[in-house]
């Protein structure tokens, strides 16, 4: 605990604590709780059984009822701690009718006891309901959603990288009439959100037959002005002499782009790739509009559909939410430096 105190504390090189130090301590502590808490709560909840989830007040850790295998019964029976006149006994439940349960002592399986359910509490131990994660993989559309999301994310990112870098190359390394017009067009639409062109975009997608297809989700998102702009800024720093040297070396313009400029733009491409993956993975409104059949739902749309059902199956929903969150968290953990410097540098999101 002293480690945490040291971590939290800040010193201004003076003796004693200033109010700012207390405030910092408070803010960071609260931040840790408020920012991380919900995600951790989500993960813990996703590992609870439906019974555990419906409990109020909820338990912190996921519990599972203790069960026992009794001779003569196929299924394992749930164990309860029962308070009777004779004292406290651990009994297994056979069935329950109203407020009365039929129970047996695992030691003496022949004798049946009738117990009021008020007199007993289930015996539980910490246990994870992995079936929340495993079941949807086999008997729901979840694997399809996952596959669709992966497809959309990978394809959109690859196309984004290719088309954006080609455009950025043309805009940074060639002098041609209309270059400024193109730049201004791209800049002008930097801030036009999808929601403003939702209706006509939908009609275009429909008229080219992409309604209800994954390509209909992918194509409108790939020509990101942000990507073109960012890559162009980076390519401007590559000296023109390098391109001229390549021209003297019999390289075609395509080779100059593919063999010289692209490899040298790798750092910027990496940042764009990370952002594109996160953007496309998280996209919601546009897929929601374009996709209407369950077979083509992406994760985000699928999750929303599950959450909108009359009888929300929270144990599955939470588990799937965790799965949806995992790739992004992995990206974050491993590539945090890239992302934060990318944002601080370009102010993009």
């Amino acid at each position, binding site marked *: 605990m002293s480690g945490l105190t040291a971590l939290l504390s800040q010193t201004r090189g003076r003796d004693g604590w200033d109010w700012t130090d207390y405030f910092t301590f408070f803010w960071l502590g609260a931040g840790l709780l408020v920012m991380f808490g919900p995600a951790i709560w989500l993960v813990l909840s996703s590992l609870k059984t439906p019974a555990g989830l419906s409990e109020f007040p909820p338990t912190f850790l996921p519990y599972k009822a203790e069960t026992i295998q009794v001779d003569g019964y196929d299924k394992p029976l749930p164990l309860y701690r029962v308070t009777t006149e004779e004292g406290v006994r651990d009994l297994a439940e056979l069935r329950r009718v109203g407020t009365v349960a039929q129970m047996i002592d695992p030691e003496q399986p022949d004798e049946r006891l009738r117990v009021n359910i008020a007199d007993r509490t289930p015996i539980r131990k910490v246990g994870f309901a992995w079936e929340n994660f495993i079941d949807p993989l086999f008997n729901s559309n979840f694997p399809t959603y996952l596959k669709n999301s992966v497809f959309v994310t990978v394809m959109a990112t690859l196309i984004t990288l290719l088309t954006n870098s080609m455009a950025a190359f043309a805009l940074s390394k060639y002098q041609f009439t209309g270059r400024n017009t193109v730049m201004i067009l791209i800049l002008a639409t930097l801030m036009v959100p999808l929601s403003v062109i939702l209706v006509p975009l939908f009609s275009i997608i429909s008229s080219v037959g992409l309604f209800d297809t994954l390509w209909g989700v992918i194509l409108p998102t790939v020509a990101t002005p942000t990507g073109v702009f960012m890559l162009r800024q980076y390519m401007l720093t590559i*000296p023109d*002499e*390098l391109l*001229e*040297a*390549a*021209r*003297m*070396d*019999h*390289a*075609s313009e395509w*080779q100059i782009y593919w*063999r*010289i400029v692209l*490899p*040298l733009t790798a750092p910027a491409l990496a940042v764009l790739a990370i952002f594109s993956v996160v953007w496309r993975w998280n996209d919601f409104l546009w897929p929601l509009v374009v996709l209407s059949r369950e077979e083509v739902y992406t994760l985000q749309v699928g999750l929303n559909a599950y959450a909108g059902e009359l009888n929300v199956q929270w144990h599955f929903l939470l588990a799937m939410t965790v799965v949806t969150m995992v790739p992004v968290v992995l990206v974050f953990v491993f590539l945090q430096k890239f992302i934060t410097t990318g944002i601080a540098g370009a102010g993009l999101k």
Partner: protein
Amino acid sequence: MGQITLKDIRKSFGPVDVLKGIDLEIEQGEFLVFVGPSGCGKSTLLRMIAGLDKPTSGTVEINDVDVTQVSAADRGLAMVFQSYALYPHMTVRQNLAFGLQNTKMPKAEIDRRIADASTMLEIDGLLSRRPGQLSGGQRQRVAIGRAIVRDPTAFLLDEPLSNLDAELRVSMRAELSALHDRIKTTMIYVTHDQVEAMTMADRIVVLRGGHIEQVATPLDLFNKPANLFVAGFIGAPAMNLFSGSLENGQFLCDGRVLGTALRLQDGPGTLGIRPQHLILADGGALSGKIALVESLGIETVLHVDLSEGGNLIAVLPGQAAVKAGDQVAFDIPRDKRHLFDGQGQRVPV
């Protein structure tokens, strides 16, 4: 073969005329140097020859074939850039091989050429390194190696030594000269360092403001500068120039008679004498007080304020026994003086 002919090359960038009609014959196997003050159009001219830019008008011929409209890659020339322009993401070997691979040369031939060139330039130990892991001098060699492996009709070098420190520059200068002696390929070399020009060139082209001022061998340039600009530009310290007038075969300047027995027309003119050619002599034509003495050991440089106004620089061999404040007088040897007419053109004495 490596003969290049430039016919009336003109180049404008928008309203700015950078090259104003260049005519030049470059001989097979020649080491030709372009010198001139910064911004006079040396690089621009070289890029015209290379094919990296197209002239506004005029033609470039290589071996009597008009290549003005031929692309840089197909002219069979190789260029060494001031910044070297090595591909940073490729190893030295890949840098050397890139241009050859682009011409679909068989691998064995590529390997042979790289081996030859790298032995010649003593970079065979560096082949698997990247440019970033090389010293300036090593990079320079690789840049030259990249040109050599191409076995070009001619080499074009744009200030290739200007990024090296003084010591390295001297040794690379010698190496380049030795290289030229060995491979006997035409080389066109741009510099603004006149020592480089004088020591390496077979012929020197002096450029100013987009014009050729003079084309001559180094010694001719030194001994018979065609005009005032070349006279002042070549040689260090610069030639002392006195403007005055010719009257009855005498050259008069500020009332002094600086030259006699000149069989020339009367009129305004300029007389020049190189600092090294002045001879200390009591009662000489030029007298004054020493303002500054620079003793370089091997020679002594005197800055003299002339009695009749104006000043003069003289270089005396060895360690002259003079000090600042001394009164001195110089003689102008008859065969060392240079005369220029009112238009600044050289007139034979």
